[in-house]
């Protein structure tokens, strides 16, 4: 037995040797070099002309004296943590924003040899967009679609969330079903589905209602209505997150309020309008912002954003189709302003309603 143990020990001897060698080397390196360097930097930190700290004071260039108190230290650490975002915001958001705004007043092209060449054209890019035969109807269709689809999604998601909030079986399953589109919906998948006609409900598409609207009210309402009906499911798929938001809001409502109302004789119908809706009212505007952003930024083939990309990349300087970077920037800016205006309209409508009450 003892023999076996010694055999095993012998077997592990090289391993032990290897590790002791490695750690010994690391240790001696640490003592000889790293510790020395650390000591030197420590010395340099306290004995240099640029920055040093003395008691509770930070001294810069030996004449600017900053008193370090708790508040200042906190501000320093706060900015240090947020620094990442500040740099990113300046480099990847603020500067590009100004630059693309500047470019939108220019005719700008990119070439490999001499970078960006831009000539000032004033409002020509914007005028071109308003005169464009392809873009202008698209902008109109976008506004129409938004104005019809956003209320639809809000109503739909309130309805679903109220339904799920009932004491029903398989609550988790229903939440999973209605959240599923958020996970799987990507541009190519949806456009394939739309090509196959899987995003329409066949009975909705060619209903008599649409014909009636077309004949009696006019084309302007019928076109966006048709667009919505043909992509009904695609639009409802944007309700995934709003449903969860409303559901989370509903679960925060105190059930004793409902009980008190029921005792006082309020019907379920009254309870919905008088308790449920007011309590989730603030969430409606949050959801409107989310829906407008999500729907606007969803780029399908043939949408405005898609065209902006094409205008930017495809074609050459001599083709009539290529309007360059400035044109694309102008499209993006108009789109952004429309988005903000649509959001403003909806949120304004909500607040007017609130004042009436």
């Amino acid at each position, binding site marked *: 037995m003892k023999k076996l143990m010694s055999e095993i020990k012998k077997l592990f001897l090289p391993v032990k040797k290897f590790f002791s060698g490695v750690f010994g080397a690391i240790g001696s390196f640490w003592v000889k070099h790293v510790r020395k360097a650390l000591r030197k930097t420590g010395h340099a930190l306290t004995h240099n002309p640029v920055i040093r700290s003395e008691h509770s004071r930070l001294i810069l260039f030996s004449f600017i004296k900053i008193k370090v108190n708790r508040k200042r230290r906190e501000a320093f650490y706060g900015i240090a943590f947020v620094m990442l975002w500040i740099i990113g*915001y300046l480099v990847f958001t603020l500067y590009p924003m100004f630059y693309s705004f500047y470019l939108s007043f220019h005719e700008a092209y990119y070439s490999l040899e001499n970078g960006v060449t831009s000539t000032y054209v004033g409002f020509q890019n914007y005028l071109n967009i308003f005169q464009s035969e392809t873009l202008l109807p698209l902008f109109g269709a976008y506004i129409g679609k938004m104005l019809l689809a956003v209320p639809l999604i809000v109503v739909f998601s309130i309805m679903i969330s109220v339904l799920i909030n009932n004491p029903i079986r398989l609550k988790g399953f229903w939440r999973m079903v209605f959240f599923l589109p958020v996970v799987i919906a*990507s541009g190519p998948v949806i456009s394939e589905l739309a090509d196959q006609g899987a995003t329409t409900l066949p009975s909705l598409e060619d209903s008599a209602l649409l014909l009636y609207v077309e004949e009696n009210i006019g084309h302007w309402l019928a076109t966006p209505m048709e667009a919505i009906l043909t992509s009904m499911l695609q639009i409802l798929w944007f309700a995934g997150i709003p449903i969860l938001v409303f559901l989370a809001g509903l679960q925060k409502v105190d059930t004793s309020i409902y009980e008190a109302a029921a005792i006082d004789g309020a019907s379920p119908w009254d309870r919905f309008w008088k308790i449920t809706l007011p309590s989730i009212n603030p969430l409606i505007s949050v959801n409107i912002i989310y829906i407008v952003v999500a729907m606007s930024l969803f780029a399908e083939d043939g949408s405005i954003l898609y065209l902006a990309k094409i205008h930017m990349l495809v074609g050459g300087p001599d083709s009539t189709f290529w309007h360059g970077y400035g044109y694309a920037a102008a499209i993006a800016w108009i*789109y952004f302003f429309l988005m903000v205006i649509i959001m403003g309209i909806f949120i304004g409508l909500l607040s007017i309603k609130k004042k009436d009450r």
Partner: protein
Amino acid sequence: MEEKKMSQTKLRLKRFLFGMNFVDGFVYKLVVYVLLISFGYIYLYPVLYMAVTSVMSVDDLIDTGVKWVPTTIQISNYVRALEVLEIPKSIWETTSYVLKVSVCATASSAIIGYGFARFDFPLKKLMFVLMLATFILPSQVTMVANMLIYKNLNLMSTQASMILPAIFGQGLNAAIFILIFYQFFRAIPKVLMESAEVDGAGQMRIFLKIAMPLAIPSLIVVFLFSFVWYWNETYITSLYVGDTVTLPLKLQAFKASYETLFPAGTPGAELNEAILMAGNLLTIMPLLILYLFTQRYFVESIDRTGITG
């Protein structure tokens, strides 16, 4: 006696149908379930359609009588789609790319959210509002200038062009992620951090040793969301990184790559809807599997943003 019994059964029936309070009665429940099932059907219709169509043979596709139950189950559609999408390889590539980006986005938004939540510094409110405002700013507004920046830095068509903004908290929907962390770190009692400070821990150590372990659920939520959103993003990805980086982008080019793989004229080579749908289903399959295992985190996510008060 008989009459009393009658009225009693009537009352019982009424109780059963409408309950004490209408909302606990049978009729109400029936309506709720019917509505839920029909809305669920509408909602899942595209997915069901995709799944059923993907196993259909050509005859079934043409036959208008066949809608939901295919007469034969044709696996060869999937074999073709697998070949066109180069499945094992492209899933690996997509996953490794998306993992890199989403890990960066998660880490950076945790740091930034902690900074906003824990410390007070000048202009904090303004910065916070600007941060939230980036949510509604379309990336298309900044894309022109960003492209020029990347071109000057030689980052065009590399994954770094997506990873860099993610590291600096300007990635896809970064505002939401920062908000989630902000809400979470604000809810942790400050006393915890202060006691560590008194014991002599530096701010970095407090962040790594105290805040991070507490924030693991939020980290998971943010990571999952950024994973899914970066996976599904195609517009910016195809512009900055390349046209065939992720699986959805490969799906976009499905028709073209199908024709090069199975040129027209070879027997049985025509691209039909069944193969397209099989490709579609294969594209969403990885996310679907991920969702099945982690749906709890997705569904809980809304509470973590704290927008419900």
